[in-house]
């Protein structure tokens, strides 16, 4: 198909690739490299001791005890023939010397680098309180093991701090196990950051129907332990207090970019900026040749959504962006592919499967086009400037492919076509996303502005 230069061919045969981050994105990048014929040296660096495993079940089946944490190991689609550096986080990058520095001092040379360090759970802000037994932030297998032990010990009450997807799923499992659960959320409803207040209100009703003591518009201000250092009590900013033996900290995520601080790359709290082909920008907005990024940690301009830089914390994004990044890392310029993936995600909570496509957070308005929110089974579309930008389904995911195409083709909003199971009246209402000035928990699609060098939290002006 193409004429490869000698340099490219030599790289494919005997080049050195380092992938920093050994989870879903890192693994898929490695597999793609091998599948596409990379025969050189491949090193995967991971801060966790385990080989790559799947995280979505950790807050669902594994937490509920339906399968053991070990069962989440990700299968290898092909022989990787890779060198693994597990349990040793990368702590620095020397771009001029083309080396990744690991904790412990080892330096690994590379010709091309792929950054897939992902995110970690945002910790409870008070370190002393965070260290109390029974306070758990859920991200990895060990967190799930700890939380399962705490839940199995028969706590008087489980407090979930933050009602994003992780918090809501943990609350769901808690109720499934028959435990009293309180959920405290700063926004006016659960899932407000990801789905907006209008659909969040449906999630709120769902939680309450399942016996969750849901408190919205409140902030947990402190946690209190007993003499043996186990959490027993929480204080809220509405002046109330409650007794709880488990506190699950579900305050969203932080991007693992600190190790790149002195690298000169365009990396910061909002992620690692890269172009539509996953090539990383440096701090001046100049695109690099040999450094790529993929997965939760990457933020890249999306052509379907006004080329705004989006950071996507989705399983499918980790897989597909890793494949594009690895392909482009191996390819000559003319063979590179853009990353055009429409974000999709799923969640399972309180007996309902929630799936979504597109970027709900871009929507100003939302309309239920199929089913009924009263029945907890519906399709809702989000609109931005007269076009469809997202679809969210509750127990109606089989229709999602159709709406995905509506999003890809920027179909008019509100839709005018007739469908099966159409409500008597299609009412367009404000989607009601929280003011971006107030950080909310786990929106999962994070709008990070239009500048590749954006390193700080920026405020997107309130709508109107």
């Amino acid at each position, binding site marked *: 198909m193409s004429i490869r230069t000698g340099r490219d061919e030599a790289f494919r045969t005997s080049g050195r690739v380092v992938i920093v981050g050994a989870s879903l994105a890192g693994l898929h990048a490695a597999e793609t490299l091998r599948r596409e014929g990379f025969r050189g040296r491949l090193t995967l660096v991971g801060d966790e001791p385990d080989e790559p495993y799947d995280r979505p079940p950790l807050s669902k089946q594994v937490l509920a005890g339906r399968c053991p944490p070990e069962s989440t190991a990700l299968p290898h689609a092909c022989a990787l023939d890779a060198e693994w550096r597990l349990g040793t986080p990368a702590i620095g990058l020397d771009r001029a010397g083309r080396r990744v520095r690991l904790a412990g001092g080892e330096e690994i040379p590379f010709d091309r680098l792929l950054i897939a360090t992902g995110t970690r759970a945002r910790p409870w802000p008070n370190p002393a309180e965070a260290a109390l037994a029974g306070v758990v932030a859920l991200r990895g297998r060990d967190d799930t093991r700890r939380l399962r032990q705490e839940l199995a010990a028969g706590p008087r009450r489980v407090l979930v701090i933050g009602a994003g997807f992780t918090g809501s799923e943990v609350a769901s499992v808690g109720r499934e196990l028959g435990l009293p659960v309180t959920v405290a959320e700063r926004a006016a409803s659960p899932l407000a950051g990801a789905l907006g207040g209008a659909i969040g209100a449906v999630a709120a009703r769902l939680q309450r129907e399942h016996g969750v003591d849901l408190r919205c518009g409140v902030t947990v201000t402190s946690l209190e332990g007993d003499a043996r250092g186990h959490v027993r009590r929480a204080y809220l900013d509405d002046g109330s207090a409650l007794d709880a033996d488990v506190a699950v900290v579900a305050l969203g995520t932080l991007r693992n970019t600190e190790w790149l601080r002195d690298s000169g790359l365009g990396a910061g709290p909002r992620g690692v900026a890269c172009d539509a082909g996953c090539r990383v920008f440096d701090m001046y907005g100049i695109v690099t040749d040999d450094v790529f990024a993929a997965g939760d940690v990457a933020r890249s301009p999306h052509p379907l959504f006004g080329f705004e830089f989006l950071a996507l914390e989705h399983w499918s994004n980790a897989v597909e962006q890793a494949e594009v990044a690895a392909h482009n890392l191996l390819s000559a310029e003319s063979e590179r592919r853009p990353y055009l993936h429409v974000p999709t995600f799923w969640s399972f909570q309180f007996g309902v499967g929630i799936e979504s496509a597109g970027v709900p957070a871009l929507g100003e308005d939302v309309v239920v*086009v*199929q*089913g*009924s929110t009263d*029945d907890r*089974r519906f*399709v809702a579309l989000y609109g931005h400037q007269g076009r469809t930008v997202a679809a969210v389904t509750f*127990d*109606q995911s*089989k*229709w*999602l*492919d*159709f709406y995905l*195409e509506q999003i890809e083709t920027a179909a008019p909003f509100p839709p005018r*076509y*007739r*469908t*099966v*199971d159409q409500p008597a009246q299609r009412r367009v209402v404000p989607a009601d996303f929280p003011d971006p000035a107030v950080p909310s928990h786990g929106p999962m699609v994070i709008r990070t502005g239009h500048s590749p060098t954006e390193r700080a939290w920026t405020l997107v002006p309130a709508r109107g």
Partner: protein
Amino acid sequence: MDARAGAGVTSMSAQTDLLAQILDHANRANPYPLYAELRKTPVLRAHDGSYVVSRYRDVVGLIHDPRVGLGNTSQGDGDGVSFIAMDPPDHDRLRRLAMRHFEQSDAIRPELQRIVTGLIDRMQGRQRIDLVDDFAYPFPVTVICDRLGVPHEDEPRFHPWADAIVGGLDPRPGRAEAAAEAHVEMTRYLSALVERFRAQGGAGLLSGLASDEGMTTQEVVATGRLLLIAGHETTVNLIANGMLTLLRHPHLLDRLRADPDLAIPLLEELLRYEPPVQLIRQLYSTLDDVDVAGTTIPKGSRVTLVLAAANRDPARFPDPDRFHPERPDNQHLGFFGGIHYCFGAALARQEVQVALAELARRLVNPRLLEDPPPYRQNATLRGPRHLPVEIDDVV
């Protein structure tokens, strides 16, 4: 009809007879060249007025398109249609209830094995067998009657009923009347059975549904009737088509004998290569104008989806006419898709995996006596009427 009706559609030309040719029994043994011809016209206006769609991408698009529906509700005609013919929300409610009471997990595997063993044991000492009458036919009926909780002694009554009702799908004289009669009789039988379950309890799906508050007796009966027919004819054909395919590729019989787990991917390929439901004819209609491959199918049109043609679409499956048991990326339409994805797919998979693996293991040197074998009349649920085979022994 809409002014745009027929824009870009090949209508009423020589090609309009393609669907008629497909329905013609003379072409039953090998309709695949006709399907290939059909795919050349992505949207074909057929002689019966329906719009025929046959390419993989387009069929999948329509299956997931909420602007296409079936138009029935549970409050339909007095007799009650089952959820297979309904749109949401009724479809979703009834299917979900039925799923809750329909055990089709691995737990039933030993029972399937026992039934299969019994049927093959009966072939011992014979040199000539009919894999349809001796095996493919009795096996799924026994299984589905068991699942539903129909008493064993009543099982023989279901064969002629199911036959007549499925036969009614074919537009031939007398068929419709026979189907209607069987429909009435089966409904009467099932209603009585459900009433008995309501009073006395029992085992199986019907009793589970009868004791569930979510369904009326009429809805339970309609669900039972659906599963008896759908669980019956389709599985018969899947097994018969499967054995026919294996007998045409004897090296695969050897491989399956050596490695029974090959049955798992092999069945998926079979569902692609010889799907038991070949087409969904005129059941769907458009609720709005729908664009397919650059052609507008106007609002209110009947649509025919040719699943078997989509399964052989070279744009989706490389080398589509080759039977490749380990085909990667085999997302076939053998169980349909979308909200009406085969309700009993998990059960059918287990049944046919066990059946093919056991037949391969126990029949010694099986040889096809007639190729092609005689086919049933039905073009939709296509399969051999008989599959005469010679064997040396049964182990």
